[in-house]
């Protein structure tokens, strides 16, 4: 039998009560905050894992934002190229109509006017800007207007590159395509050199109005060039469509990945309510029992009988 000192009964009883209170407080904080991992010391391994997962998740969310940004920008360009395609189609129709012996001077004049309107619309589309007032088709040269009134390509845009954005580790997409590769022909049939679609239309317009001797050749060349440019525009749209598909797939991958990350993270970090509440109940009952037993023991003293 171990001899017990009276002060020991109190000290140990008190330390038991304090221990249970501290457990209860911990449970209570876990339940209230919904987080069980608040200090690296709680569970260093889980904390390290949770930190890595949280960083991963934050990076994934950034990639997701990047995907949304890129998608928005590519969609705007893609739809602008759609309008440009239909404008080019109309230009092509005019070129074919003009190449008809039955056209009179008046009707040719009307066609030239029509062409002029289309050229203006086309210029506006090719120089269109985004919500921040920057040019869609100027690549890296954000504030350089791609085409001037004469239809020649701004040299700053000509030397510009596409802008890329990261959408996953090691994966980037082009957010935009500069005008050079879409609206310029390296060797145009009409001018014999590098020319923009606008410059080709200029030549076509002049030919329609002035009807030079080689007008047939001009018409033929212009048609060839328009077809070539339309081809380039279609290709650019196709490539943007591909980019959008890539972005869509990346978005799906990203959210699937992020769901898994979040689930794992939640298992590591968040309070399991069932467990926490059970523990709280347990500590509550323990504390109650300890308090009651302490009061009982306290009542037991031989001195009570020395009266």
């Amino acid at each position, binding site marked *: 039998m*171990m*001899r*017990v*000192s*009276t*002060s*020991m009964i109190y*000290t*140990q009883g008190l*330390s038991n009560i304090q221990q249970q209170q501290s457990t209860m407080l911990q449970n209570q904080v876990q339940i209230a905050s919904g*987080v069980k*991992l*608040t*200090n*690296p*010391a*709680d*569970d*260093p*391994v889980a*904390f*390290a894992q*949770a*930190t*890595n997962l*949280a*960083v991963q998740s*934050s*990076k994934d*969310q*950034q990639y997701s*934002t*990047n995907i949304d940004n890129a998608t928005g*920008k590519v969609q705007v360009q893609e739809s602008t190229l759609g309008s440009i395609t239909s404008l080019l189609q109309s230009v092509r129709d005019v070129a074919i109509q003009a190449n008809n012996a039955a056209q009179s001077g008046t009707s040719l004049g009307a066609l030239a006017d029509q062409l002029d309107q289309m050229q203006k619309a086309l210029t506006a589309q090719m120089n269109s800007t985004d919500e*921040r007032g*920057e040019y869609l088709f*100027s*690549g*890296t*040269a*954000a*504030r350089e207007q791609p085409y001037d009134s004469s239809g020649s390509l701004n040299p*700053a845009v000509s030397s510009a*590159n596409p*802008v*890329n*954005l*990261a959408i996953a*580790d090691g994966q*980037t997409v082009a*957010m*935009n395509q500069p005008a050079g590769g879409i609206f310029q022909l390296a060797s145009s049939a009409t001018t014999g050199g590098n020319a923009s679609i606008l410059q080709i239309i200029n030549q076509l317009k002049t030919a329609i109005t002035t009807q030079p001797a080689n007008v047939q050749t001009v018409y033929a060349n212009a048609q060839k060039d328009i077809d070539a440019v339309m081809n380039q525009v279609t290709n650019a749209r196709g490539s943007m469509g591909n980019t959008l598909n890539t972005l869509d797939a990346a978005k799906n991958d990203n959210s699937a990945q992020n769901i898994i990350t979040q689930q794992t*993270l939640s298992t*590591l*970090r968040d309070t399991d309510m069932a467990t926490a509440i059970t523990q709280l109940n347990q500590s509550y009952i323990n504390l109650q029992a300890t308090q009651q037993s302490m009061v009982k023991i306290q009542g*037991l*003293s*031989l*001195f009570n009988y*020395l009266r």
Partner: protein
Amino acid sequence: MPDLMSNSVSGLLSMQQALATTGQNIANANTPGYSRQSVNLATLAPQYQSGGYIGSGVQVASVTRSYDQFVVSQLNSAISDNSRLSFLNNFSTQATQLLGDTKTGIAQQTQAFFNASQAVAANPTDLTARSAFLGSAQSLTAKFNQIDSQLQNLDSQIGQQASDIGRQINTYAQQVGQLNDQISKAYAINPNAPPNDLLDQRDLLISKIAMQIDVKTTRDGQGNINLSLGSGQALVLNGTATPLTVGNPPSGLSIMLGSTDITTKVSGGTLGGMLQAQSQLITPLRNQLGQAALVLADQVNKNQTAGVDLQGNPGADLFSPTASFTPQTTALVTNKGTGAVSGTFTDPTLLTGQIYTARYDGSNWQVRTEPDNGAAPVTVASGGALSLPGLSMNFSGTPQTGDVLNILPTVGAAGKINVVQQNASGIAAAAAGQPAYSRDNTQMNALFALSRTNMVGQSAAGANDGSNLSDTVGQAVSKAGAFAAGVALSAAAASSTLANLTAQQQSVSGVNLDEEAANLMKYQQNYQALAQSISSANTLFQSLLSAFR
């Protein structure tokens, strides 16, 4: 000649002393350090009369305290251990709490900074995105600064607390010395009458010293208890105490007993815990965070200066330039020479996160890693140059044999990192050669890629065989967490050992009030019986007298 009267009177006197002692026990039931006392009763020498020896009563042979020297010395070492661990436990919980949780921790803020570069990458000319990026750089450096200064505060709090503890130990030691004098005098007068309460007081003082520092006790058999610290240096010898001086210079806590440096020998008590907290938690943590901060500054600055800003001008540093950081070095206060070491960072990514110590052996500096990894030390002549991974150091001054210098390369660097780029338009998002207002985001994409480049602690520039920045920071945090968790476990064990030993000690020395109540009854009844005996003796004497009337 023994008779009923004188035997009963001797009993009455003894019972009075026994009752007084019981009263003393009850009075001190809750006095710290009190050992219950008991009277040892013995018969008085019997007298020979015709027919045999007749007892001549009872006496109090001695009043002794219930005391187990073995348990007490075990208890003292358990107290040292427990207070070391409970200090470390509280301290490391406090320190790790500063590092944040898994949602707002510094690892996440590091990633958040890199994420912010992507808003600039999406719209490189957008000043709002650029400002947000600068803002996130500022909150990251603020977080680094805050953690470093809080860790430094904890460190200087240790210093203040430690010098208070030093003064306390000195007071206790002086009192132990005085008690030694009184106790040895008392024993000299009567070896069989222990000065119980003085003994208790001295034991209590010793346990209070043990709480602050690991102390060894030796008894000289004359009643003195001598105390020694470290590897046997005397704190108290008989009546004399040697003063203890505790300081917290930049090189860390220093504990001097008289003129002897016992710092490295202290391994227990709160002071032992403080030494461990500094060397095993705070310094490595500050060093690792500093390493991450320095690599961040260095690499992001390299990225920025390689590009052009919104105006097309060459990029400038975003964070404090690498040249503004210098490796932290400290010299022990006990150094006798003027030897010093200083240097510069050559390539922060090559830093290994190591701490080094250089000890002068009389002709050369011997440089080892701290903690010693067992590798052969690097030998550098006094005044020579030392090349370490990522560091270039130079020794100077005239050292003396035994002098020690510490090289803590990146301790404090996390507190020095700042955002020096003031203008949102100054951020270099575009590659070199791009004109003003370029939408090029090459530098921002490269910056984002830095977040997953394993460059911290790489073996050679471009090797990328180290770890990335968030990982480095995360590792530093979880390493501190692992230390704290280990300490918490040991602290729980030490506290239950202490509880067990205290129970044992109390089992021997503690007062049990029920027991005292029983004793009270026992002595009271005995006293009443003795009173009755005296009354009987009186009656007997009266009947004898009446025979002559």
